[in-house]
């Protein structure tokens, strides 16, 4: 049923456009078929959406985990660790993101396939995107978590835990971490749509997963050529992307308003 790779040349007319109304919608192809090669649109969107969300979610988890751990350490330690992490945040923020993602792709994908033996092609490309988005995304999380920890650490239950003899590890991750779930959730929902957009941009530059495997970015890139030929096909992938990004942004904003009454928009 869902087959994003088979081409249906019989359903394409001589101009390369799908036969039938609204891009060739039928029972077999509920969203029609794409112009040109004639693959099923629904199954491509389905797989593309899954892959894009998987990559973005994995990168977001990476950023949030690193950001939260460093944010807690920076916020709780009053001495050199705070300074060191602060400087590290400054350093990472100096790097121009898009340029770094582009410039590092050749070298790091070579390293992933050569040293780490990740199969070349889609797996290596996907790993690269997750890795670099994750690495360049954590500083904003660290800053916000550190701010939250700074107010948490003055609370009485922290003193109580310390007096009971809790070590740093227990203090950080058993006492402080559970109190941070709200900002962590908000950060995750706000980072995820940013990464969906970033992955699409990387697809455009040919760095993320490559065609014929669909991702949101690949589908969008493929649709760009049909601005005059098949307007519906041109506009639909962008509409889908906007829908996803706006939804997650609204979810994040809503969560923030609901979980943190102090922050007013």
């Amino acid at each position, binding site marked *: 049923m869902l087959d994003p790779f088979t081409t249906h040349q019989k359903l394409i007319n001589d101009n390369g456009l799908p036969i039938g109304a609204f891009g060739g919608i039928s029972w077999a192809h509920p969203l029609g078929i794409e112009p040109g090669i004639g693959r099923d649109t629904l199954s491509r969107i389905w797989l593309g959406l899954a892959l894009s969300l998987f990559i973005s979610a994995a990168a977001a988890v990476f950023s949030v985990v690193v950001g939260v751990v460093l944010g807690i350490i920076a916020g709780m330690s009053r001495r050199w660790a705070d300074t060191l992490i602060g400087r590290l945040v400054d350093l990472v923020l100096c790097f121009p993101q898009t340029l770094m993602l582009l410039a590092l792709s050749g070298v790091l994908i070579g390293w992933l396939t050569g040293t780490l033996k990740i199969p070349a092609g889609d797996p290596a490309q996907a790993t690269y995107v997750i890795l670099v988005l994750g690495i360049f995304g954590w500083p904003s999380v660290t800053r916000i978590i550190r701010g939250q920890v700074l107010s948490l650490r003055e609370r009485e239950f922290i003193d109580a835990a310390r007096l009971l003899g809790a070590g740093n590890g227990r203090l950080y991750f058993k006492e402080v971490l559970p109190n941070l779930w709200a900002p962590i959730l908000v950060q995750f929902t706000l980072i995820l749509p940013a990464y969906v957009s970033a992955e699409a941009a990387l697809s455009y530059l040919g760095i993320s997963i490559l065609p014929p495997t669909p991702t949101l970015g690949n589908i969008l890139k493929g649709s760009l050529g049909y601005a005059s030929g098949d307007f519906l096909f041109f506009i639909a992938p962008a509409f889908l992307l906007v829908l996803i*990004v706006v939804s997650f942004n609204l979810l994040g904003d809503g969560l923030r308003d609901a979980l943190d009454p102090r922050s007013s928009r």
Partner: protein
Amino acid sequence: MIAYAIRRILVGIVLLLAMVLVVFVLFFAAGNPARDICGKYCTPEKLANITQVYGYNQPISYQFGQFVQGLAVGRDYPVDDAYRAALEKSNPDLVIHCPAPCLGYSQHSAMTVNAAVVKYAPVTISLAIYAFIIWIVFGVLFGVIAAVFKGKWLDRIIVGVTLVVYALPTFFIGTFLLQFVAIRWKLVPYPRYVSIADGGVLNWIISLTLPALTLALFYMAAYVRITRAFVLESLSEDYIRTARAKGLSERVVLFKHGLRAALTPLLSMAGLDFAALLAGAVITEAVFTYQGLGFLAVISNQNADLPVLIGLVIVAGAAVIIANIVVDILYAYVDPRVRLR
């Protein structure tokens, strides 16, 4: 004040050195740079030549020292001393002197990275300035309007539109403007970069309009949201209530008291975003094939021209670091509390 400025500059220099070091480790420790540059049709002779020209057989610490030395006082290519001495006798044209601040040498395009940056920078700088003006003027304008009309339909429309524009990928906006505004509706001529020297100021502005608009729309959407939030926050301060209680007109309250506090942090953010743009608007330049620094990055990536990529990253990082310092010092000048931290 001067002590604060000096401290900020020193921190900036350390940060820049740390950045160069990280770039070195990322680009060289992970991979095999000579092999990467050599490309698909690599012969042992070509590989040996690349290694000699760039000195990739030396330890990384030594290469790093050489690079920093090149930044400070300049250096000569090929890096390998014996090879360079031999070349100076047989074929002196192939010995390249790269004056300070030397960012490297690209064998692929047979020019120093500095020369490449200078060649491609005008488009990027023009684009960045034009986009900056559009996004600041309209971003702040719509942000203030939205804040003043908070909850009314005008605010809702502005916020809704910015959410959508913010979510649209730059390359889609660019393609849309190119395909419809320029090609289908012919509202502007097909965008092709014209320098001031070639076509005068007017043609220069016209040629940049679509790409600058593409670039500006994303930032504009972000700045509408930020401005709205800042203005709303400052309008809820106590001194605004005091100003209203004094009987000041709503216009004076907004412009003299509300906006001044709201826009200062905005300007420092804008400085940093502008600096980040100088790295090249990679996507916008790729969509319109405008030959700026972002375009240079894309073709250098395709050609595995590592020295150019490294140089671009360092230029971009330096721009951000310098902008950071300038913004911090200006901020300390405006707001004395900052200096005491």
